[in-house]
């Protein structure tokens, strides 16, 4: 029995309850992940992080939320009022809606009803998530425009260009998953990975491309050019305060959780246990799969924080070049390879053709990368003429120093 048929006989009250649970889980995860992010980043920067409010500072994010809600709500005089108010609502709503198609558990007993923790199972579930994500960007773009000032407008425009570019790479990285699983439904993809290996291994390049573009899609460091506090103050949310700002904040974190959940579903086997621990899926009457799911989601969340703590923000043109000139061509080529391999493996009996094709692909990739390296070497080996000596006093260059005062021991430089 698959998820779609299990979900069909859900009574109305279960659907309502599930929708409520999805909402509560998202809000709870947001609060906890804000705390978690601050603690992890603090650890990476040799600080302590929030540790005053509650045990380990656990309710710091909640306290911040209350503070945020009690702040004065400003609407700039130059703002387009209606759009200014609608924008954060669009952003937050879209973020939550993506969670509707995520299968959080295997079959479980939910108040006496055999079901799965998944709100609905669309045959085009993954495309639905992409569609909702593209609606969510409206929130950011409109916030930028309606604020009626320069920095937010620039942030909004950056964000729209960014999301359009990275959505293409993201969509292309998903195509390989569709080809291999033969479905676009989230639950069917999870099921298909049980028959083979996780797609994160089988389709490793797709996984990498998705992982990169999901950071770009959620406007997170090092791709947070829409906010870019160093250059655009706060980007699209510069003029926002109080609850409206809180909605953007909420949307950002729910989005992170949602793209992490999608990555888990598509590439890391969804709610299933890691191979070898399959027996744990029966624990707690199947509810243990929920724990597996969130372990994987939090793993991705940790990667998000890790990236933020490690990498500086990209320059805008480098970011766009990376998207259009690297990610998209690479994923197009990869799809070509995947589709060909799929056709070969389904039509021909012998493995020789498959391995032969794979060998040719490896050779071509090696050839291209060698050619790239060569041209790079050629470019960097240009010799520059020595500059003329400046017309003011400068310290002598190390190569010109002939005598150096060193201590008695290591005097090998003379």
């Amino acid at each position: 029995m698959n998820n779609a048929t299990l979900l069909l006989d859900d009574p109305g009250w279960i659907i309502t309850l599930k929708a409520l649970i999805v909402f509560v889980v998202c809000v709870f995860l947001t609060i906890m992940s804000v705390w978690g992010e601050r603690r992890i980043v603090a650890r990476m920067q040799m600080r302590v992080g929030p540790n005053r409010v509650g045990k380990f500072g656990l309710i710091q994010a909640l306290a911040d939320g209350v503070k945020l809600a009690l702040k004065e709500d400003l609407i700039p005089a130059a703002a387009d009022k209606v759009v200014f108010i609608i924008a954060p609502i669009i952003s937050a709503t879209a973020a939550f809606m993506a969670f509707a198609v995520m299968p959080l558990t295997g079959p479980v007993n939910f108040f006496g009803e055999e079901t799965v923790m998944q709100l609905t199972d669309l045959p085009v579930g993954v495309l639905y998530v992409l569609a909702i994500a593209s609606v969510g960007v409206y929130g950011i773009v409109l916030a930028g425009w309606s604020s009626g000032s320069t920095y937010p407008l620039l942030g909004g425009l950056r964000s729209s260009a960014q999301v359009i570019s990275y959505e293409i790479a993201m969509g292309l990285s998903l195509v390989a998953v569709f080809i291999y699983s033969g479905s676009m439904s989230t639950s069917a993809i999870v099921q298909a990975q049980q028959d083979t290996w996780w797609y994160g291994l089988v389709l490793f390049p797709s996984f990498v491309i998705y992982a990169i573009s999901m950071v770009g899609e959620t406007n997170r460091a090092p791709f947070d050019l829409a906010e870019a506090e160093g250059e655009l103050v706060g980007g699209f949310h510069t003029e926002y305060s109080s609850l409206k700002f809180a909605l953007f904040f909420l949307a950002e974190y729910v989005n992170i959780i949602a793209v992490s959940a999608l990555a888990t579903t598509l590439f890391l086997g969804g709610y299933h246990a890691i191979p070898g621990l399959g027996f744990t899926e029966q624990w707690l009457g199947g509810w243990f799969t929920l724990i597996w799911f969130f372990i994987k989601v939090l793993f991705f969340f940790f990667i998000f924080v890790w990236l933020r703590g490690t990498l500086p923000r990209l320059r805008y043109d480098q970011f766009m070049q990376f998207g259009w000139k690297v990610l998209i061509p690479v994923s197009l080529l990869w799809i070509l390879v995947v589709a060909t391999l799929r056709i070969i493996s389904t039509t021909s009996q012998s493995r020789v053709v498959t391995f032969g094709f794979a060998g040719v692909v490896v050779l071509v990739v090696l050839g291209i990368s060698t050619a790239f390296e060569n041209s790079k070497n050629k470019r960097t080996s240009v010799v520059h003429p020595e500059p003329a000596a400046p017309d003011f006093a400068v310290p002598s260059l190390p190569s010109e120093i002939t005598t150096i005062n060193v201590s008695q021991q290591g005097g090998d430089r003379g």
Partner: protein
Amino acid sequence: MQPLLTIQGPEAALFWILAPLSVAAALGMLLVKKAVHSALLLAWVMITLAIFYIAQGAAFLGVVQVIVYTGAVMMLFLFILMLVGVDSSDSLTETITGLRPIAITAAVGLGGLLVSLLGRATLGREPVGLEAANASGNVEGLAALLFSTYVFPFEVVSALLITAALGAMVLAHHQRTNPRPSQREQAINRFRSGSLAGAAGLPGPGVFARHNAVDVPALLPDGTPAPSSISATLKARGNVLDSGQFQLDNVDTTVVEEK
């Protein structure tokens, strides 16, 4: 005569809530003054259409409608609108006389044509063949049609779209006469140029401890203002203050001794 359309339960509720909203948004799109509002209402109409598609069992069509039209096309449209005229409103004066009646006639004619055609095709007829078409799944059925029977028109349309996109790129692209220097090259050039005076960057504006706004030139050690510390744009606009008034000589520097 049998009932023409039978929609019940949730679908009927969905229809009666969304259909008026959709029509109102479509009318609003024509009537609002700001171009961005108009584009937004158009996006809303597209989203409601997508919801209708999904409610009628065409999940793929609905989702693709949102991704392609609402997501990409409308976003680009908004992008251009915001860049071209952030706050531009439509002028309602008729520049060429007699254009309005022609436009209204054409619009009514096209509307009438569409309504009559769609009406003749759907009203009073039971839809047939949906089950057979979706036998192996909605997406699979669509793919089988697109990539077998209609593969030639499909490829022709995609070639047309790619040509249009490339054409737009070629038309909008302007060729630089010399390559743009990269950050690295700029840094190298600063150090390799005749003087090293500007190698570490130009002086910042403002008079230390007195006035640090961008519109005031910095003072050099001898008390003269440094013109290179001010943005060329501000200079061209004439938005530059005289830094002389912030010189230490001109202000009262007598310190009251605390006893």
